[in-house]
């Protein structure tokens, strides 16, 4: 039977999606398509691929496949669907869309595939999705609206609701399935057992953080050379998998922090070291950080200078730290502070004497434009004291503090993290 031959070829082409291919072929290989299908599952689990292949394999169907990211307004959607079905004209309302669909209908069922359908929710005041799902009923034609998405269907319910779809779920690949899929791209086909050992090393480390097949494929391709390096140079024999593991493991662990990010550490420590800021700007950031994360009432205890009777300071800080706060300040995010507090802290932490000059204030506004500080409060220029909030993270400020030999920990009220 033709039905079965489609299944067999597709299953050979797309491994590990047997169940989904079965059900899609069964449902679509008929004279009458169901009005509304909802295909969902995580990213890179083969949703679009399977749907596309199945529809192409079934000759009977006219179809249009749309990426909803491209559709800024319903008009783009309507026009590109109609264009794929062979109608080229303006179409900017649902009414015209339904009318034109009737005109392009030639007796063969139409299937409209909408990839990333969650993007459509905001269009047309949320009315687009109910409208689309009503099209089969309204036109009375055999039209199948197929949504492909990665979020649960309940998120699509809006307004007075839409009909229930037939759900088709694409589960995430299991570890074995991912291993098998990755094995298909073995760079050295004659050495597949070695590649398998390599892949199981990779998966052992990375699978905890990431189950995305595409990302894992990228990672696998990235580390292959460094894995092969000792083998090629003859240092380690390829049968000594324990040695190979010891060689590779530190590299993998190091790059574990780059999953999804791809590339060097983009924020935090390194950027702080790279960023060339004026000397006082660095202190300004530190002061802003302290002002944002320390409660104002502890300023006196923290910043009173040694010669002014600081002997109780350390003790005081210790007793402070003992009090476990309900919610640590660091976790709640930066607080707003007025500029005079910033300046007070700034003068207290800068060792040398600085005269308050225009220079300092210009640096503050530079920091605002660098988005390291944000100006909050009223937009009016001369109304009240200007208020700021520190946007720099702990890692950045700590690395800045290191460059100017400032002991950040001593002045921080909350050192929980």
């Amino acid at each position, binding site marked *: 039977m033709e039905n079965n031959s489609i299944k067999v070829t597709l299953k050979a082409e797309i491994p590990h999606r047997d169940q989904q291919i079965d059900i899609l072929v069964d449902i679509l290989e008929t004279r009458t398509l169901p009005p509304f299908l909802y295909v969902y599952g995580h990213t890179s689990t083969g949703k679009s691929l399977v749907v596309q292949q199945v529809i192409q394999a079934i000759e009977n169907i006219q179809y249009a496949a749309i990426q909803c990211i491209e559709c800024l307004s319903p008009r783009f959607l309507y026009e590109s669907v109609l264009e794929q079905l062979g109608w080229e004209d303006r179409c900017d309302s649902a*009414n015209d869309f339904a009318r034109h669909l009737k005109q392009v209908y030639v007796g063969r069922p139409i299937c409209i595939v909408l990839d990333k359908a969650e993007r459509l929710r905001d269009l047309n005041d949320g009315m687009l999705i109910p409208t689309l799902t009503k099209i089969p009923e309204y036109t009375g034609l055999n039209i199948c609206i197929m949504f492909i998405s990665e*979020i649960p269907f309940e998120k699509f319910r809006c307004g007075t609701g839409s009909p229930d779809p037939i759900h088709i779920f694409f589960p995430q690949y299991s570890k074995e399935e991912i291993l098998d899929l990755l094995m298909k791209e073995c760079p050295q086909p004659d050495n597949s057992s070695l590649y398998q050992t390599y892949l199981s090393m990779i998966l052992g480390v990375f699978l905890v953080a990431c189950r995305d097949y595409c990302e894992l494929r990228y990672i696998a391709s990235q580390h292959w050379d460094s894995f092969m390096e000792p083998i090629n140079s003859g240092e380690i024999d390829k049968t000594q998998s324990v040695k190979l593991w010891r060689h590779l493991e530190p590299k993998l662990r190091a790059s574990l922090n780059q999953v999804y990010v791809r590339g060097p550490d983009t924020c935090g420590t390194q950027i702080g070291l790279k960023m060339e800021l004026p000397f006082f700007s660095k202190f300004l950031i530190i002061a802003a950080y302290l002002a944002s994360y320390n409660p104002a009432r502890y300023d006196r205890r923290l910043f009173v200078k040694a010669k002014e009777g600081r002997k109780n300071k350390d003790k005081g800080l210790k007793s402070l730290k003992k009090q476990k706060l309900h919610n640590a300040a660091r976790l709640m995010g930066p607080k707003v502070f007025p500029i005079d507090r910033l300046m007070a802290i700034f003068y207290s932490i800068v060792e040398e004497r600085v005269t308050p000059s225009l220079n300092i204030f210009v640096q503050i506004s530079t920091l605002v434009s660098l988005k390291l500080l944000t100006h909050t409060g009223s937009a009016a220029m001369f109304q009240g004291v200007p208020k700021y909030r520190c946007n720099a993270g702990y890692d950045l400020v700590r690395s800045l503090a290191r460059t100017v030999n400032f002991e950040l920990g001593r002045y921080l009220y909350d050192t929980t993290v």
Partner: protein
Amino acid sequence: MTSCTDICRSILLERMVFNTHCGIAIPDEFLEHKNYVFNLLKSTVVNGENNSALLIGPRGSGKTMLINSVIADLEAICDVEKDYVVIKLHGFFQTDDRIAIQEITRQLFLEEETANRTFGSFSENLTFLLDSLKVADRKATKSIIFIMDEFDQFCQHKNQTLLYNLFDVCQSAQAPMAVIGLTCRMDAISLFEKRVRSRFSHRQIYLFVKPDFQKYSETFVSLLRLQPSRELKAIYVRSWNKSAEDLAQDPLVQGSLKKVFNLNPKLRLLQNILLVALSRLGESHPFLSSKDIVTAIESQTTDCKTLQLQGLSVLELQLLLCMKYLDKIYFGEPCNYEMAFYEYTKQMKNSSMQKFDRQIAMKAMEHLETLEFIRPVEGTSSSKVQKEFVVYHILITSEQLTAAIAKYPNLPTEVKQLADTCL
């Protein structure tokens, strides 16, 4: 030569897709309403009365079906060519009055007459259309029946011009006309503007289906029942019908059907389930088995979120657990990334598992956000707040998490223990 199974499969699938089948008849409790609507329309067509009414009922309660059957009945006794026209409007498609009047013109086949005219106002346009239908004397005028689906949408139109004009014509008896609105909003009347409300007849017909399991399982059988025909051998039809009835008696199927019925007694869901089950029929598998029905029910009613949760990475699951824990101890206060990450590091302190950096955890959190398992509290996601401090609500229940964790393949025991303490 197509086999009986194939024919049967395609007949039944067609039945599941289109609501064209005697099995999906109008329920008895609606017959009264149906007669009422029928008499309304009949008096419009025959006596030239003007009527308006509103059919209110939840989605899937059979409003459209009722009106379609009324119109079919009307066709049987009146002459469509001569006596009346039916104009069907749909609130989702005729999204403003301009489009609506174009659609009305189109359905009246008056496009050519209006092509070269310009109208000063909407009512002028409508009057022209109505006049065009008039023949010499008033008696011979065609009646117009307006069926307005998703009626509440028409109330959103600017000034409700269309509604005002229709009801005005209706009330002042300028032309014989009936306006039937279908809506699922109970408060549809209160959406009217004052001038529209005063012109409406205030006939409201409520359609509510009383859920009844007995009837539900009868529908189940009648949806599957075949009628003997030329293409199908009588013996096949008999054995098929027998198998369908046996299926409904099967305790396994009954149990699952009962569960579906308690969740969602809508016909659409039952049709979907049967469609999935029927699509598996083939030469090697000529009759439905109870297993088919049960797996179809399972595939259509399993919770999406639980399934999705099983596909998360361990790290993402851990973060979710931490957020759920924070949600519990702070009584539903939203929490931000820093709090969740701090909780995570606290729990990982004495653990032998791989610990992750802030960045990776941040990515995991972003992934959770795209999957809409967590949602930023309104107003906080603006560019003013660092992304670490955007506060989130968690949209997963602890039951969903427990169910997902129970099924998660090769979950480290530590995470399981964490789940036990967190949930």
